């Protein structure tokens, strides 16, 4: 299941989907809005997506993860619009009979999403400046990972 949403991500519902009798391991990863990046302070993040394409890219990631690992459930949800401090911008939930697959698939999904999904983050700093994060451009040359 993949979804883009402008609302807070409903994590309990995602976990309920993943906790199936065929699974023995459930892994959830949340990317959340962090206050500090180096010494700069964030008030919120704002996310924008090329929505039709992002959904297709996330669907490809789900399909590839299900091909590579034995998964019971696989869900990827990305929030768009404003995400406040400590709020979750992305949730990846996978369940599998054994934990090796859950950890490997969860890690691969979030890494791949960050590489390929056409989604962009805008930093809102406490000094009032606002900047789009485009790794590798002058627009944003700082290392960025969460």
């Amino acid at each position: 299941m993949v979804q883009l949403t402008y609302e807070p991500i409903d994590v309990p519902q995602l976990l309920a989907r993943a906790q199936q009798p065929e699974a023995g391991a459930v892994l959830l990863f949340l990317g959340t809005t962090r206050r500090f990046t180096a010494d700069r302070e964030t008030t919120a993040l704002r996310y924008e997506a090329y929505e039709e394409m992002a959904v297709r890219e996330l669907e490809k990631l789900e399909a590839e993860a299900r091909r590579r690992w034995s998964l019971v459930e696989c869900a990827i949800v990305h929030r768009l619009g404003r995400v406040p401090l400590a709020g979750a911008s992305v949730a990846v939930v996978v369940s599998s009979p054994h934990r090796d697959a859950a950890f490997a698939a969860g890690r691969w999904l979030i890494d791949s999403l960050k590489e390929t999904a056409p989604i962009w983050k805008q930093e809102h700093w406490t000094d009032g400046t606002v900047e789009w994060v485009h790794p590798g451009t002058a627009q944003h040359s700082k290392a960025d990972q969460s």
Partner: protein
Amino acid sequence: MKVAVKLFAAARELAGETELAVELPDGADVAQLRASLAAKSPQLKPIADRSLIAVNSEYADQATVIRAGDEIALIPPVSGG
């Protein structure tokens, strides 16, 4: 043919538009689209040089041929997650 190129994030703000109309010869490829885009909107260059092009919601390469009616987008370096 005329194609509309969707713009996002910093590219959208640099251009001040959500789409840019570009005139292309029939049978043009992505490389020609990039050249036309650069000529039409030089202020996009710092971002466009680092961006990918998507055709019909798929990442395209330089040789991908563009057809009238294709949905084209400029994809700056992504930062979701």
